[in-house]
């Protein structure tokens, strides 16, 4: 099959709609919301791509996926080739196809978006990656790289670490990943709920790395069990990608009441420890009728939608700016609304109110209005005098962000940090210690899966150069 439609014919095709589980059904379970495209839908969507010369979409991708090329292969119904192109550029395509904010990256730059809808690049990526997982026998065999005899230690098994490990293994280096938790995937597993990213996808992506010869050691906390200096002695290079750390506290009264969670705790209990997911789960989680989630990012959406699934009758997002200023992906906001989540906008928490016996009973808030733009380009919220009011809530979840984790850096005195405690690294991930590279949230503070993956990819290239010296 060939991909030789005229531009006019391509322009005549409407953007595909992702099939979804009905909102009333999915808001009571953890099944994946997006069901994936059918073969016909994928083919038709692939034909919408104009195969333009400018390839703006590629510039919008933090890992530089050869987007027009894989879409062309897909439009030609050559899935093995599409999968090969995708896998060559992106270590975790099935993950990216699900959690990347395409609307601000590749799809934002798609020429078709100038008049009408951009090509659904994320849906197509997911389609190809899922096909590849189901058809391992039809994939083009990767040539086994010549072993270089060099070894690399990767700290952290999240998106940055997995990406770097995959790239380095394909270059012929012997890679060992050290993971602090008891399971793989980092934030992909403990942070992102299964209704967005099923655990099976992570398991399969990790299995691909194992086939490439990557060793993964769980329960090893770098900075505690072993130090960066010890890794530097035992390995030819080190890549630090241990992720975000301590939750940022709100510093408002009542934060230590029972029923107040940091997003990481709430999500880790449910996602990693399976609390509330089955009748007799060993790790407990509180369940209340009214749950207030503070924040407007993807983590806040994950928390509020999880609370809904655990049975909350009122699951609320409390955000101090307006909906247009929310950093969350548009799709997450849409899905949350469909699932009955309430959006309480222009509202900032000032205290958590408790009962006499120490349980949360309400979130005390004040109304905000938007003033002039701040440094981030978003309009700065300002309190409205005399607008205080209480929102009844049995659980309050703080999803405003995280600070740098000090565990690794505390025992690496030569590693230069910025004033927030994040590791200082250049564009290629090189830190202040020769042979030690870093990327992902430990460098960026709180960012996205795909930016972490971009860091992993660039650092792997830099490590490869370093190892040749």
């Amino acid at each position: 099959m060939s991909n030789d439609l005229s531009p006019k014919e391509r322009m005549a095709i409407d953007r595909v709609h992702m099939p979804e589980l009905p909102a009333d059904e999915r808001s009571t379970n953890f099944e994946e919301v997006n069901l994936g495209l059918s073969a016909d839908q994928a083919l038709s969507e692939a034909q919408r791509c104009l195969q333009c010369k400018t390839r703006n979409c590629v510039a919008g991708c933090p890992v530089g996926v050869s987007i027009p090329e894989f879409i062309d292969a897909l439009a030609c119904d050559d899935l093995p080739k599409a999968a090969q192109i995708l896998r060559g550029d992106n270590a975790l395509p099935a993950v990216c196809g699900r959690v990347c904010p395409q609307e601000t990256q590749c799809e934002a730059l798609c020429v078709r978006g100038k008049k009408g809808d951009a090509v659904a690049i994320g849906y197509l990526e997911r389609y190809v990656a899922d096909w590849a997982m189901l058809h391992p026998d039809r994939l083009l065999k990767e040539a086994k790289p010549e072993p270089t005899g060099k070894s690399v230690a990767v700290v952290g098994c999240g998106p940055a670490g997995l990406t770097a490990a995959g790239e380095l293994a394909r270059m012929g280096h012997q890679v060992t990943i050290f993971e602090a938790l008891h399971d793989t995937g980092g934030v992909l597993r403990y942070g992102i709920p299964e209704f967005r990213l099923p655990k099976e996808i992570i398991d399969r992506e990790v299995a691909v790395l194992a086939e490439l010869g990557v060793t993964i050691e769980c329960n090893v906390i770098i900075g505690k069990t072993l130090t960066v200096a010890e890794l530097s002695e035992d390995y030819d290079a080190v890549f630090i990608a241990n992720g975000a750390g301590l939750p940022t506290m709100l510093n408002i009264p009542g934060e230590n009441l029972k029923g107040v969670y940091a997003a990481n705790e709430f999500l880790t209990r449910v996602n990693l420890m399976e609390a509330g997911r089955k009748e007799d789960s060993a790790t407990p989680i509180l369940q209340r009728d009214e749950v207030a989630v503070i924040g407007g990012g993807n983590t806040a959406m994950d928390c509020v939608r999880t609370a809904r699934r655990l049975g909350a009758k009122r699951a609320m997002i409390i955000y101090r700016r307006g909906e247009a200023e929310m950093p969350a992906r548009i799709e997450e906001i849409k899905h949350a609304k469909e699932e009955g989540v309430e959006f309480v906008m222009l509202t900032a928490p000032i205290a958590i109110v408790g009962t006499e016996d120490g349980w949360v009973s309400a979130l005390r808030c004040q109304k905000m209005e938007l003033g002039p733009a701040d440094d981030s380009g978003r309009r700065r919220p300002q309190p409205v005098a005399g607008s205080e009011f209480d929102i009844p809530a049995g659980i309050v979840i703080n999803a405003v962000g995280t600070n740098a984790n000090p565990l690794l850096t505390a025992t690496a005195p030569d590693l230069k940090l910025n004033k927030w405690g994040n590791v200082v690294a250049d564009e290629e991930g090189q830190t202040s210690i020769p042979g030690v590279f870093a990327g992902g949230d430990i460098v960026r503070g709180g960012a996205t899966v795909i930016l972490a993956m971009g860091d992993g990819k660039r650092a792997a290239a830099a490590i490869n150069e370093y190892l040749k010296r």
Partner: protein
Amino acid sequence: MFEVVSNEILAENLHKMVLVAPRIAKARKAGQFVMVRLAQGEERIPLTIGDADPAAGTITLFIQAIGASTRKIVSTPVGGFIRDVAGPLGKETHITNWGRVACVGGGVGTAVLFPLVKALAEAGNEITTIIGGRSERYVILADELGALSKNLLITTEDGSLGYKGFVTGPLSEMIADPARAPQAVFAVGPVPMMKAVANLTREPGIETIVSLNPIMIDGTGMCGGCRVQVGTETKFACVDGPEFDAHLVDFDGLSDRLTSYRKEEAARHAAEGCKLAKEVAK
């Protein structure tokens, strides 16, 4: 996987378990803990590292089997395996030579106290150890602690061994006697005991350190579940502690947060009990 090489019962519901964990044995310092998860689907539980043998590559855990998860952990036989043991976590105890030090332990806290007493003794401190329990059969590690201490004082609530009463009795006598008053106090045990010790030493201004054991999930600072109010600051016991200045800790807040899952745990406990009863009936 971490092999169990010994598992002995020290007192009712209290086990001393030795595990093969060479990296942790080598890295560990007094005051640190590990996160333990028995098997897939089980809870992550923080447990203090009681002792370690770097040459043998083993660590010793003292485990009080009071919840469903800890009971399962202690039922692992010698030669069996614990799936996940991660650490050492937390800050090491600040050890210096204070001179006279009182080490106070209550219940399973006595086991947590053991590595501190050992490190303090090695640093040349003159140690008076005061340990207590409900009755004689709950008093543990008396011989081991006695060997490291200049004085060992035992209290029991029913008077079945040593002084009748609480550990605070002998401690307040010590403080009142200029010839015996300690320069520093370490206290580990139930929250009310640590609070009572802090109240005794606050007025005379004796430096007092307590080791806290709040609810934890990851133990690496990620979840924030173990937060505790220390003075004007919110601290995370897993990365900032587990040891803190007793005079600054909000013990009432800590006590209250420890009850967060009482209802859920009671339900699980009952369910596990039923399961066990059914198995026994078979």
